[in-house]
């Protein structure tokens, strides 16, 4: 029963009660047209047997500039008797911006007819799943309502935006056996000269060093070239609520997720093996993999993740660092909170090469910080705390990118990767 029907019933009761108490028959007569109105509503109300509706949902996505547009179309078909008053609605998704259409629409359907609800919303990233479609069928006056949840499942995942980055000149401590683009520091079949060794049976004759062979009778020498192989790269993405900063409709985590997606894409494009650990609630770990399949897995994981608060995950103490292959290059993407530096000695102790990409939360939230004396002082204190944390990490020979998210990340990573070469020598 709708609120209108309740109002009407209350009025009818009040009028009848007034008529009885005041001995005013006219008050009872006044209730009669209201009763007739309510009666018509009740008689015309749709019943469960009469309503046969079918909903089908289609979802399409396309990217416009930085944001992804998701177009949702739901078709409601009437396979039963005529329904003169229908209200169709879909629950609005949190954190999205409606750009076209509406979430709610009225309809009236004759037998065999169909109505459509269409809307388009924009979002940067996310995982959206629909199970049902809500329909309210009522009598022509909207007094007696019947709420229906029709099955109309659909799912769409919006991965973070990928920014195409030029391949990085990587130099890792250890490489894998498959051919790739990273100098492997061992002789083999690359392009750069590596050294000369004595000939082994089976070496190709075109690699023979004839000059040296000429100088040493009865001995043959083979030229070696530096092998180029692929490397193991691990990404740790900080998805804790405590390190996230909300700024209007945007938040700092979106930048971190975008950076993780772009870095994963470029490393996989270079042929490397990439793994991902999302440190949030829930913890998501994607074991090392190659190519487009792994990229899709990573993008799906990044589409679904949202910064959440969980006390047991509030620090980096229990990060399962051993999920990464030994001697991997680990990129940690985190805005850093107090005592987060303690993760890095562990990573270094396990022999990983480490690089920290730290989106600067203070720079990100600068516009919303109070500009009075107290605000400036608080800002300076937070800045000091952050610098102290970063300096502790730098002391472990971990290159740190103090990333102002308005700046492009690729040149900074390129520069920092040169420093990881130094790290690998230590």
């Amino acid at each position: 029963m709708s609120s209108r029907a309740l109002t009407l019933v209350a009025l009818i009761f009040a009028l009848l009660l007034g008529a009885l108490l005041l001995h005013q028959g006219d008050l009872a007569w006044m209730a009669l047209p209201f009763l007739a109105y309510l009666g018509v509503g009740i008689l015309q109300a749709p019943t469960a047997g009469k309503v046969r509706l079918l909903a089908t949902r289609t979802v399409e996505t396309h990217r416009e500039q930085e944001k992804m547009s998701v177009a949702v179309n739901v078709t409601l078909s009437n396979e039963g008797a005529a329904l003169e008053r229908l209200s169709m609605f879909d629950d609005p998704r949190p954190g999205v911006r409606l750009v076209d259409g509406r979430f709610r629409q009225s309809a009236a359907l004759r037998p065999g007819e169909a109505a459509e609800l269409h809307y388009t919303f924009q979002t940067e990233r996310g995982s959206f799943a629909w199970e049902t479609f809500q329909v309210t069928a009522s009598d022509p006056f909207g007094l007696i309502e019947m709420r229906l949840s029709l099955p109309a499942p659909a799912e769409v995942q919006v991965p973070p935006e990928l920014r195409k980055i030029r391949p990085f000149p990587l130099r890792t401590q250890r490489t894998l056996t498959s051919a790739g683009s990273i100098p492997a520091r061992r002789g083999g079949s690359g392009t750069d000269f590596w050294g000369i060794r004595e000939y082994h049976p089976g070496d190709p004759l075109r690699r023979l060093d004839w000059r040296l062979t000429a100088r040493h009778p009865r001995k043959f020498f083979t030229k070696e070239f530096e092998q180029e192989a692929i490397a193991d790269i691990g990404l740790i993405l900080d998805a804790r609520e405590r390190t996230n900063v909300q700024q209007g409709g945007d938040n700092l985590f979106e930048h971190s997720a975008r950076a993780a997606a772009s870095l994963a894409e470029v490393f996989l494009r270079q042929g490397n093996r990439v793994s991902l650990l999302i440190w949030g609630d829930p913890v998501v770990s994607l074991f090392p993999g190659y190519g487009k399949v792994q990229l899709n897995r990573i993008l799906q994981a990044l589409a679904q993740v949202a910064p959440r608060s969980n006390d047991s995950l509030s620090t980096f103490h229990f990060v399962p660092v051993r999920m990464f292959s030994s001697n991997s290059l680990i990129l940690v993407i985190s805005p850093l909170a107090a005592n987060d530096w303690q993760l890095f000695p562990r990573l270094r102790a396990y022999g990983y090469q480490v690089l920290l990409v730290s989106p600067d939360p203070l720079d990100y939230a600068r516009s919303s910080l109070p500009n009075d004396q107290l605000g400036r002082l608080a800002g300076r204190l937070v800045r000091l705390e952050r610098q102290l944390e970063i300096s502790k990490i730098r002391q472990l020979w971990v290159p740190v990118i103090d990333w102002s998210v308005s700046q492009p990340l690729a040149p900074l990573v390129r520069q920092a990767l040169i420093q990881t070469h130094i790290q690998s020598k230590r």
Partner: protein
Amino acid sequence: MTLQRFLKWGTLTVGVVCLALGCGLVGQWGLLAAVGLAGLAGILLAVWSAVAFVVLVGLAAVGICEGAWPILMILGATLALASWDLSNWEGFVADGLPDETAAWIEWRRYTYLALALGSGLLVTIVGRLVSFQLPFGVLMLLAALVLLGVDQTWRLVKG
């Protein structure tokens, strides 16, 4: 102005005039002013909420108790109900109802409304003209039967 708007404002205006006339004829100037204010608020503020409808029906009931002509009061209250209903209909149409669907359903809706309120008014007027005495106990019994009937119908619909 569309037909639905014309009907909405028309029923409201006529309803308020009926109530005002009824109150004015018996010299209930305070009640007349209240009716005028409620009607004016409904028209000027373009907000025809359930509260305004309930206020007008309440004023009509008070008017009857104060001796105003009942037919005018009942007519005024019924027209207030019609206006409230049409206001709700306007909201339904504005909620993205396609034009061709609105054209199909509009007249059916007016017909239902006219039938429901017209029949209710007709029975009321006839009932008032054909007057017969009913003992209070019988009236109570009839009221209880009506309540039971409404309750049973509601159960039937819900089931």
